[in-house]
């Protein structure tokens, strides 16, 4: 029995925690996280939407701020006057779509920016993939983001999807998992991005479903929490990275939902927010992914989250993006 009792999510406290994030503007922590402010807002907003408190933050203020993060190249930075990067472009597009304000930005400009980051060169070992920004880092995260961002504007056909799918296939390892790039060690967060990318592309046939499901199921430890790689520590955020991948694979039942809930709930801070593990300091990232992880296992009172886009299912449906589900192999069943 945890100090909160079983199955007690401190909804009001978490809402307050998220609302207070922007109030400590004089603190060192606020400056230290400036580079990813947009992602911080996305994490907070997803948590609020899933907690069914979408109005807890000022929508107009957020929309104006996010629009201010768009640069001349069409991409978005993590904060105003910060360089564009796919990570923050993704968060920005996700925020605007949740707040029903996607039409306030020029989808063609964003598409042009994303397409400019698709590369086939020596740095990418001759494979087609997408870089995070103009400085050339490539990673399966960026391949997923490119596909996901363009799907918001229905321009994903302009990507070399076949080429990118081969890059993702190249990142698959002997254990069925996926790494950050071809040659990279399997890691649960990278597994999510690859499986989600393949879902968007309608190419889940690439996945070794049984081997990968087994590897993912092994991420759950005796305490109920999950880790990202074998022999590593449990961390609340893997409730999302592992849970979402298993959900897409239609193997959610391969982990113990009960033990997972126990773990996430015990990582709450009594003053609001969720930490990486019990006893640590809460932050908005773990609050978001802890709640998203709980939503995946249908914790009562939470809105359903889409396992590919990590946004409420209702928003994903409104945008017509739920159709990835129709492309899941027919032989798979939940």
């Amino acid at each position, binding site marked *: 029995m945890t100090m909160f009792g079983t199955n007690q999510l401190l909804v009001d406290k978490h809402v307050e925690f998220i609302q207070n994030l922007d109030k400590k503007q004089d603190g060192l922590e606020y*400056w*230290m996280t*400036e*580079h*990813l402010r947009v992602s911080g807002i996305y994490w907070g907003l997803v948590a609020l939407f899933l907690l069914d408190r979408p109005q807890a933050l000022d929508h107009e203020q957020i929309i104006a701020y996010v629009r201010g993060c768009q640069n001349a190249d069409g991409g978005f*930075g*993590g904060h105003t*006057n*910060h*360089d564009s*990067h796919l990570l923050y472009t993704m968060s920005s597009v996700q925020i605007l779509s949740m707040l029903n304000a996607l039409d306030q930005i020029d989808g063609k400009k964003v598409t042009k920016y994303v397409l400019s980051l698709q590369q086939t060169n020596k740095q990418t070992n001759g494979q087609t993939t997408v870089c995070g*920004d103009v*400085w050339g*880092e490539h990673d399966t995260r960026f391949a997923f983001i490119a596909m996901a961002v363009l799907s918001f504007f229905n321009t994903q056909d302009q990507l070399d999807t076949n080429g990118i799918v081969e890059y993702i296939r190249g990142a698959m*390892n*002997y*254990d*069925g998992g996926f*790494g*950050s*790039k071809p*040659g*990279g*060690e*399997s*890691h649960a967060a990278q597994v999510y991005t690859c499986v989600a990318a393949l879902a968007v592309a309608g190419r889940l046939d690439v996945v070794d479903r049984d*081997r990968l499901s*087994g*590897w993912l199921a*092994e991420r759950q430890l005796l305490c109920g929490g999950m880790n990202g*790689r*074998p*022999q*590593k520590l449990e961390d609340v955020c893997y409730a999302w990275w592992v849970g979402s991948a298993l959900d897409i694979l239609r193997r959610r039942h391969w982990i113990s939902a009960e033990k997972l809930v126990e773990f996430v709930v015990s990582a709450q801070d009594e003053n609001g927010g969720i930490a990486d593990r019990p006893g640590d300091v809460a932050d908005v990232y773990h609050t978001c992914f802890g709640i998203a992880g709980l939503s995946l296992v249908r914790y009562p009172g939470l809105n359903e989250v889409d396992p590919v886009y990590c946004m409420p299912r209702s928003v994903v449906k409104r945008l017509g993006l739920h159709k990835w589900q129709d492309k899941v192999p027919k032989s798979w069943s939940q």
Partner: protein
Amino acid sequence: MDLKATSVFTNDALDATKRLLEQNTELHTVWNYRRTIFTSLDEWQCQDTRQEMLDGELKFLLGIITKNIKSYWMWNHRMWALSSLPRPEWQRELGLVAKLLALDARNYHGWDYRRFVVAQLKDAATDKHEVDTQEFAFTTEQINHDCANHSAWHNRSKLLPEILAQRDEDGQLEVLQTENDLILNAIYTDPDDQNAWLYYDWLLDIQKSDEDRCRLLRNKIAAIRELLELEEDSKRPL
């Protein structure tokens, strides 16, 4: 940010970026700006002064590496510095990353960086097979030190096909026997470690002949029987 917005590319601006990055390695916009300043300075145009600038940059990076060893931006900047050096010392980098992995054997960035450095070494080498062989030996060393080091097993799985391809039939049998012994050692050390069993399955998958596959399978079955005698409840052998 104001300096950057007005396109100021001076040594003073470089100093300003250094002070900021010492406080916060995550300011990727500042790393970007720093690179732009470097390439705009006159000294960049001359090979010797560029070498000096970037050697200094590598020292600076080494000094702050412990601030946030998981910083993607910092590792990216290091890769940029090395790739821009007229005379990069890849062997020295390999030594550096070996030291890092000695402190944290599973460091994700460390292993990714090691693969990047090894790829550069291989590119420049006359004997590329030798590079693979040395790297393979490094994974053996890591696994002998800790057979639960999955990062080392993973790297090994990428090198094994290359190692096998270099050998004749007898040589390949020798390699596979060593592989078999290594996995069995890991399995007997911890029968419930999923990784060794997955590696064993994969080894079976990559066998070219049915004969080789059967031989390995017989070894695997014998191991399972023995383990179940020793530990009845062990889930993997079951």
